[in-house]
């Protein structure tokens, strides 16, 4: 294993220490439990948004903390969901009294840890809602699996809901907005290579020189299927079509019912994309893929969207949700309306996102 690290055990902590000295104008870092929070937290009269998942996906949520986006991010160990005490302590610091939204990716580990965190926070008198992102169309059915994973849409949700919080949406409104973003977002990913976690020290899976993994998550897990290597245009087309032609997807997600005061299963269905829709197109690199390759993919994606009658009104191209040094990419299409466009365009100032200020 060749990495620019000291001890594998110290990677997460030293990364946070580096961020703390590099960006004191935007963020502060709390250690044990680990979390990053806005330097100016808590913000009076504003709902706080807290997210975070395993480390190894940087810049992801760490890069999203700041004005107009997240109030705190809780990084777990590499590829391991964070622990409830991280989210609890983060909530205590960033909550201004307007409540906290936990933005959770639909992995069993994340869901369970955030549920426990919510229970703990509520027991300390903090109002919390957990909203789940599950946008990965590589997972076909929700009945016989953990359900779709949360991938690309979560970053877009963080931006949009963060802007809504600045605009003083209340907790219920932001929860509703997050659901809307989730139901309108779809992603698909693929890998050309595996990656090496500092702790394990060897590749998570072996891929032949002429093979790709199609339908991967972002944790170095193997994907839906292994395919022979194809051209960028062919791969882009396969990914784009899995998203565009994805039919209505029904799933049951567990949310906290504030009236009944218990976890309740709610059924949600997301409508398929249709010709005439406006979309935000997000081409994400898995870490080790050079930027030009992402633009080559974006170029083809734009062509396909045009052919399918989808109007790309906003875009994002870059490595925002990575799997360490994995090579590969994912595509996310988020159906946009005027509200979402306005919130997307709103000013933001984080390590990864900065515009309008």
């Amino acid at each position, binding site marked *: 294993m060749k990495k620019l690290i000291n001890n594998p055990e110290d990677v997460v902590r030293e990364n946070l220490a580096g961020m703390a000295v590099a960006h004191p104008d935007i963020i502060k870092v709390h250690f044990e439990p680990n979390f990053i929070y806005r330097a100016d937290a808590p913000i009076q009269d504003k709902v706080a948004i807290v997210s975070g998942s*395993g480390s190894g996906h940087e810049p992801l949520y760490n890069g999203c903390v700041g004005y107009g986006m997240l109030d705190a991010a809780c990084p777990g*160990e590499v590829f*391991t969901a964070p622990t409830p*005490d991280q989210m609890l302590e983060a909530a205590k610091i960033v909550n201004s009294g307007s409540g906290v939204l936990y933005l959770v990716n639909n992995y069993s580990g994340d869901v369970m840890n955030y*549920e*426990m965190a919510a229970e703990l926070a509520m027991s300390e008198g903090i109002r919390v809602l957990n909203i789940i992102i599950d946008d990965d169309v590589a997972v076909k059915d929700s009945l*016989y699996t953990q359900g779709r994973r949360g991938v690309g849409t979560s970053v877009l949700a963080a931006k949009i809901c963060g802007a809504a919080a600045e605009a003083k949406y209340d907790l219920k409104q932001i929860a509703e907005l997050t659901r809307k973003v989730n139901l309108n977002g779809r992603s698909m990913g693929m890998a050309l290579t595996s990656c090496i976690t500092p702790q394990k020290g060897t590749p998570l899976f072996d891929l032949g020189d002429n093979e790709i993994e199609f339908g991967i998550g972002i944790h*170095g897990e193997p994907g*839906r299927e292994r395919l022979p290597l194809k051209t960028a245009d062919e791969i882009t087309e396969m990914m784009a079509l899995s998203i565009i032609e994805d039919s209505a997807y029904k799933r049951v997600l567990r949310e906290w019912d504030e009236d009944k005061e218990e976890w309740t299963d709610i059924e949600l269905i997301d409508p398929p994309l249709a010709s005439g829709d406006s979309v935000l197109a997000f081409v994400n690199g898995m870490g080790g893929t050079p930027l030009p390759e992402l633009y080559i993919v974006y170029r083809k994606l734009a062509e396909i969207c045009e052919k399918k009658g989808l109007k790309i009104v906003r875009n994002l191209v870059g490595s925002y949700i990575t799997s360490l040094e994995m090579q590969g990419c994912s595509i996310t299409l988020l159906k946009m309306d005027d509200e979402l466009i306005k919130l997307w365009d709103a000013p933001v100032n984080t390590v990864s996102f900065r515009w309008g200020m």
Partner: protein
Amino acid sequence: MLEKKQIIDWIDNFTAVIAEKKDYLTELDAAIGDADHGINMNRGFQKVSEKLPTVIDRDIGTILKTVSMTLISTVGGASGPLYGTFFLKASAVAAQKEELTPEELVQLLQAGLEGVMYRGKAQLEDKTMIDALSPAVDAFKQSLANNNSELEGLQKAVDAAEEGMKKTIPLIARKGRASYLGERSMGHQDPGATSSYLMLKTLLESVR
């Protein structure tokens, strides 16, 4: 009768077993998950072994609750809340107790199992730790109902856990990370079921 000392031995011994099997559990997880189960469990139990000395004079409930809290705040992933909840629910059964009757031990394991099922929403044959824990609790209960000794009951539980663990091999996963693999999850033993089997086996060995 199970004494507090044996519970402490169990936790200590399991900490050693996890440390020893760390790479094995991680390899199992590499095949159908994200290659961290052994690392996660080991991080948690290493911390448990630091915390344990501070509470050995307390009752079994407090000891198990300390194990639980430590796991919850250090393991993360899926196994953190699951094993954390297992020990949390178990600790409630052992609250204020310095020793456990065989029936109480069964109740304790049963409560832990139910906690895991509530938290994780998994069923039997979803290819998770439930596949080891659930048949083990049933077998233990059955054995006691047949008037066997605690040791005999525990032996049955361990046998059932081992069988359940092996039965996960051909299953298609329906919960956890492995479920994303669909049919590709077939042919691999579930890491969580394996660590659960090891936990019960270590309990038996610590009692014997």
